[in-house]
């Protein structure tokens, strides 16, 4: 190929992912010298198509975040495009890119509504879990001294400033409550969609300890432990095996 083709391909992609091409800013000005001779109108159309496809991927990962952005949506998207050109074809990578951008923005401009940061983090966790896919149901293992268990490593633990669960449970009519809460997000056994659970601080502490397989017998007799293990396993927070 001609020595300059790669440079021209890079320049073309830089232009097609630019706010200039997508939003028509500076459309009357010729693009960078490497792109002399191109018809700009179809390039803009290509840029718009690609941008729409990319935003479809991102909005699919953050439906509630975008709904809550409301009138700010257009500004946020415009700034996102200017700051973060597309570098990866995958949905989850584009979703991460948007989340990183939004978090950085919210460091200087507090989000409105204020629980948006928690909602976005929760949606990113759910999108990540969906990529990993549904967990096949396993045969329940009765709690007993001959078993071992560990924390479900796929579960995402998310400390939130707001209890945002009602937003994901059929739509909240009232604003989420300002309350420190530890949420666990995971795909429960036999399901194919993520679920959100609140995890009490004491249980979270226990789960953090259970990073590796632990023999039940090593814990000795402990009142209520077997029931707790069964409950956590039922919700998918613990993996249990013989």
């Amino acid at each position, binding site marked *: *190929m*001609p020595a300059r*083709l*790669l440079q021209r*391909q*890079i320049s*073309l*992609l*830089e232009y*097609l*992912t630019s706010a200039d091409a997508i939003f*028509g800013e500076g*459309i009357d000005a010729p693009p960078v010298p490497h792109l*002399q*001779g*191109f*018809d700009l*109108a*179809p*390039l*803009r*159309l*290509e840029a*718009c*198509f*690609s941008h729409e*496809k*990319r935003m479809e991927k991102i909005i699919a990962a953050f439906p509630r975040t975008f709904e809550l952005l409301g009138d700010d949506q257009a500004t946020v998207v415009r700034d996102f495009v200017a700051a973060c*050109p*597309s*570098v*990866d*074809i*995958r949905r989850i990578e584009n979703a991460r890119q948007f989340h990183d951008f939004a978090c950085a923005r919210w460091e200087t401009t507090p989000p409105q509504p204020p629980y948006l940061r928690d909602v976005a983090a929760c949606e990113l966790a759910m999108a990540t879990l*969906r*990529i*990993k*896919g*549904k967990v096949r149901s396993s045969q329940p293992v009765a709690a007993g001294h001959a078993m071992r268990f560990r924390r479900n490593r796929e579960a995402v633990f998310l400390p939130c400033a707001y209890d945002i669960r009602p937003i994901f449970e059929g739509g909240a009519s009232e604003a989420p409550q300002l309350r420190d809460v530890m949420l666990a997000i995971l795909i429960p056994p036999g399901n*194919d969609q993520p679920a959100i659970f609140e995890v009490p601080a004491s249980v979270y502490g226990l789960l953090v300890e259970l990073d590796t397989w632990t023999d039940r017998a090593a814990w000795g007799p402990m009142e209520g432990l077997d029931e707790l293990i069964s409950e956590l396993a039922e919700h998918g927070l613990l993996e249990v095996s013989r």
Partner: protein
Amino acid sequence: MTLRKLTPAVGIGYRSAIGDWTRDNLAHFDMLEITVDHCLSSSESVASEIFDLVGQIPMTAHGIGLSIGTDVPLDLAYLDRVASIVERLQAPAYSEHLAFTRAPGRDLANLLPLPKTEEVAEAIIAKVRTIQSRIPVPFLLENISYLFEWPESRMTDVEFLNLVCRETGAGLLLDVENLYLNSRNHGFDPHAFLNDLPAGIVKEVHVAGGVTVHKDFLARPFLADSHSHPVPDGALDLLDRVLVRHRPDAVVLERDDRLQEFDEILADVRRIRARVDAVQSENGHASALVAASD
């Protein structure tokens, strides 16, 4: 598993979003086209659901992630992963687009055209030979729909495709929707394109339906390959000619949007099958017509 003996087989591109529906309706299709990149980058459960179809229905392998036209060496690790997927699917062929989608630092995730010059063709020919050396099934190149032209292009679409295919022995996955859109958007005769292809070079066919796009910055509306609507009759008329002249192994309906419109999908499959059946039953007559007009 090979495609059915009464070629061409008619099927759809498998999409995991309607995977359950597809599995429940396998009887409507002779084959499925699997996008190898969906096996490589989707969840384990999506990949498992695809591999579980092996033995139930023939599958051919299609790629979207190679970016053969990017002016850098091929990603050999990616190709080897594709080879293992192709083998696992027992696919009779592997196809990719004659296009580029990315360059270092940017990935548009959209198929872009290449400058149609002999120099670029030479680079593509070398890459196709590399692909053929690593993936042990026939390799097919697909024509893309494109919105813009490179100013230095010196060849027509068909000249460029023919040059690469002739030098490498690669077959063609002819997307008749792309041909239809390009001919309308860029003002050339699609029948002349078809006439200029060597008989038999088209091994598989894509059909799809798009939309007309109006934008204030465009001098005229553009047809876009959105894979979202019923196949236009104009594309099916091109399919007729391809069927007579090339006898492809498979015709695949592509659908990527409005996937829940199952009735539309099945209706399109029936329309394609009707064209296939009509051409097969009148093959002698149709061949004579093509010969007379060539």
